[in-house]
């Protein structure tokens, strides 16, 4: 069953067509990868799903709901969580506090009961902590639990951002370049986590990634984009050997480096 359905979506930045009539579906329980050279429009598609941008044309439906009728802050309530290409954490807060913000969509108490710390607010808080503690365990974040983000190494920040998204218990996880800037070992951890997220937690994943090794390892289906247009969709191997994809990458680096060495 399809969870996310994007139909003929187009977005222009002035004269530039960043996303050009793209359609795609992400099925329940699958890992769907978006690949393509820099500036292809991958992050822009994420920002469209997050409702940071209004598309000029097209429709986005999630789990039977029309997302375009919603604002950005309503999107998570349907069960969509995301990370950012350049890490957007709450810098002046600890890892724990960052993950707790991920629980925001599950809050049931309002300002007043929070201020007086009502019994309801207290028991809710205990539940949030328990959920966050599971995520900390899953991602091995215990050593950083009470550390401020400002002082953490890049690799750990990436994991914290994944954790914050997971803490919201999403149905669909949007990961924008989860492995960029990570070492080989860290990338491997990331691959294991994505697999676990898919198989054990039953969360669908849509990810943008340049590392074709990671893409082939974890994704069920891959879509290649270039200049905002779809080039090909299929398995990782199919997409990599597609003539249009090879042509789009001709002269550019990433995919040919890691990609061809695998095929």
């Amino acid at each position: 069953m399809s969870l996310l359905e994007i139909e003929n979506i187009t977005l222009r930045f002035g004269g530039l067509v960043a996303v050009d009539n793209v359609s795609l579906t992400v099925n329940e329980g699958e890992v769907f990868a978006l690949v393509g050279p820099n500036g292809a429009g991958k992050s822009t598609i994420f920002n469209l799903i997050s409702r940071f941008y209004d598309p000029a044309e097209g429709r986005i439906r999630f789990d039977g709901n029309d997302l375009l009728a919603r604002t950005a802050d309503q999107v998570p309530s349907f069960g969509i969580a995301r990370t950012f290409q350049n890490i957007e954490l709450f810098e002046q807060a600890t890892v724990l506090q960052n993950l707790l913000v991920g629980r925001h969509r599950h809050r049931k108490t309002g300002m007043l009961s929070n201020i007086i710390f009502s019994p309801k607010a207290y028991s809710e808080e205990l539940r949030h902590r328990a959920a966050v503690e599971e995520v900390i365990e899953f991602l091995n974040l215990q050593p950083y639990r009470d550390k401020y983000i400002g002082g953490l190494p890049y690799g750990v920040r990436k994991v914290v951002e994944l954790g914050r998204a997971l803490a919201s218990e999403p149905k669909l996880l949007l990961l924008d370049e989860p492995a960029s800037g990570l070492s080989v070992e860290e990338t491997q951890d990331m691959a294991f986590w994505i697999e676990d997220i898919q198989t054990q937690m039953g969360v669908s994943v849509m990810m943008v990634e340049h590392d074709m090794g990671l893409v082939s390892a974890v994704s069920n289906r891959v879509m290649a984009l270039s200049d905002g247009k779809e080039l090909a969709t299929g398995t990782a191997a199919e997409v990599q050997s597609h003539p249009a994809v090879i042509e789009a990458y001709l002269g550019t680096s990433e995919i040919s480096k890691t990609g061809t060495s695998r095929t």
Partner: protein
Amino acid sequence: MRFVFKTSYDADIQLFKHRAQAVWYGLLLLLVLATPLYFAAIGDAYLLGEITGVLILAIAGMGLMLLTGHTGLPSLGHATFMALGCYLNINFLGAGVPWLIAFPLSGLIAGALGTMIALPVLRLHGVYLALATLAMSMLTSDFVVMAEPWTGGIAGAAVPDINIFGVEVNRYSTPYKFYYLVLFVAILLVWFYRNLLRTPTGRSFTAVRDSEISARAMGINLTRTKAMSFFLSATAAGLAGALFGHSAGYVTNETFDLVMSITLLLMIVIGGLGFIHGAFFGAIVVGIIPVAIANGRSFLATTFDVNINVPGLESALFAFILICFILFEPMGLYGRWLKIRTYFELFPFYRKDMFKRQKSYLKTDRVQ
């Protein structure tokens, strides 16, 4: 060095991290409760009045700290909300409303009015919001004059005494009662503040402060969150304003001027942005500077026969201290204290760069 072992999630939610901390705050509470005894013993309550004034400033400071330090919205207009609270309180009391109702109501209405004023400017960022609130603060005096029937205009208005179930509280005739009353309000607000920070509402404030884009992606409604912070902030300022009126006894259109708004902002920066402690440290500094200058003056005059009479010396000294803080201690007094404490806790393992801000990574992908 101390390790905090987590035995349950409860440990994080509690107000105090460990027993020693609870003991320290207990001792502090005893100290502030016993302070009037000392002044009663020496039979001079003048300084107690000054301390009460510091507490009132700290209450206003907490209000501004919530908005600026925890939600990241600067305001140069908080004296306006103090004025609202003060004049509402005066008018309620004048109409015969009991203080126990008039006081909280003044705060809440000041908060509501503040939010209504703020809503149109909440879309503005950083310096523009500061300018908008600055303009509001500049107009306050004129509004007070225009609303003469309620405010007494330029001539001013006397602030009625507090009466709680027949118990009269007045700054001059019953300074101890007034001190305890203000202390109670301050402690209550600290408790509310702490509760806020350990629950979703407070976390949504800090989330908005640190990254609006992420906050939205986590389901936080920016306008509503900012409005909520503004409401709570202006409410605290309104309460402080009402208490300030009681403390001053008489208020005019010049009481809640721009200088007070600016002082409040400087106060929380000096105290340490983003910490409740910062509001108190800042209020203490602001309270001490005039006293120190007056004492220094009379000391120079009596011992060296030097008379310094420079107009604006206080403001200049204040500005100088502020510049020093921004240059050398951006985390404020509380940040300095944290460093000293960490130094002793970790001795001899303290590293100089421990509190250095990590260079932030490029944010080229930011969505506008």
